[in-house]
């Protein structure tokens, strides 16, 4: 390998990123070329010296100024974000809708009549107006009516 061809490979060799084939070629060249050996040593010195440059910490005001700039940024909302309610509100509305549907879907339970008024229940279940039964039950004059003949006797 010539010194000119070393130009594109020397840095990656020093970084340890050269291919195995390039590494062997470069090391073979370095054994024979004092100029390139001096160059490698010089590059190592440069890298060491670059480490001596001090690290500059951002000033105390840097973050404060940046946060002020970020706070001043306009809030960008997409078209769909403008239509959509806030997530919590959407969740609350959804739960309310589910609860309302559940309540409305429950059928009222009609419990059977008490055992002591089974006969009364049979009498009134077809009555269009319940309060009439209440009146009839407590209407004393009905007790003076003659007893109704049995249905079988009427047909006869």
């Amino acid at each position, binding site marked *: 390998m010539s010194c000119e061809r070393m130009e594109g490979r020397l*840095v990656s060799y020093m970084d340890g990123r050269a291919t195995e084939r390039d590494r062997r070629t470069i090391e073979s060249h370095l054994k024979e070329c004092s100029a390139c050996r001096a160059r490698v040593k010089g590059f190592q010195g440069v890298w060491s010296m670059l480490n001596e440059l001090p690290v500059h910490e951002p000033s105390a005001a840097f973050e404060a100024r940046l946060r002020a700039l970020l706070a001043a940024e306009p809030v960008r909302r997409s078209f769909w974000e403008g239509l959509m309610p806030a997530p919590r509100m959407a969740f609350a509305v959804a739960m309310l809708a589910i609860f309302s549907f559940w309540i409305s879907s429950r059928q009222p339970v009609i419990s059977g009549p008490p055992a002591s008024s089974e006969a009364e229940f049979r009498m009134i279940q077809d009555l269009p107006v319940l309060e009439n039964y209440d009146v009839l039950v407590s209407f004393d004059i009905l007790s003076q009516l003659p007893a109704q003949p049995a249905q079988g006797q009427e047909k006869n």
Partner: protein
Amino acid sequence: MLGVREGDETSFELLLQRYRTPLVNFLNRMVRDTAQAEDLAQEVFLRVYRARKEYEPSAKFTTWLFRIATNLALNSLRDGRHHRLEVSIDQTIDDGEQEQSKLDVADKTPDIEHQLLERDRASFIRRAVDALPEKQRAAVLLHKYIELDYAEIARTLECSESALKSLLFRAYETLRIQLAPLVGGGFNAL
């Protein structure tokens, strides 16, 4: 950054804490002005924040971040050159380390004896880096301090990997020559 894209403020805070110092240092070494470097760093974070919803992880976040930073730095340097001729030769700026002349034109034939008289070895090293052409300087800073790999640096500088390696070689070769007086403790007597 994907967390930032989803609106996670904590993720953005983590990015800020992790990258603010290397970003400010990179920009400081590029533009050679501490106050301007911080202004540019804030602009970088603002651009990241504004573009968060469109971020696609097609490249590493570090590459994307320092590509923005490099472009801003190179634009700033280009804009600064237009004003340089109007500045008084006596006007100085405080870069946080020591005052230096604003007309810090790269000296192609350095006065070695004059430079050897300088007390600050770090200042000497920094001047050598500052004197590099902008793209070589950016390549050295991204390679040495940010430790991006060659593909990432090439993408940042918009060149091929082979062109980048040549760029780095020329930059280190220049520095090797400029910093030769420091080899072997040449500044220790000062």
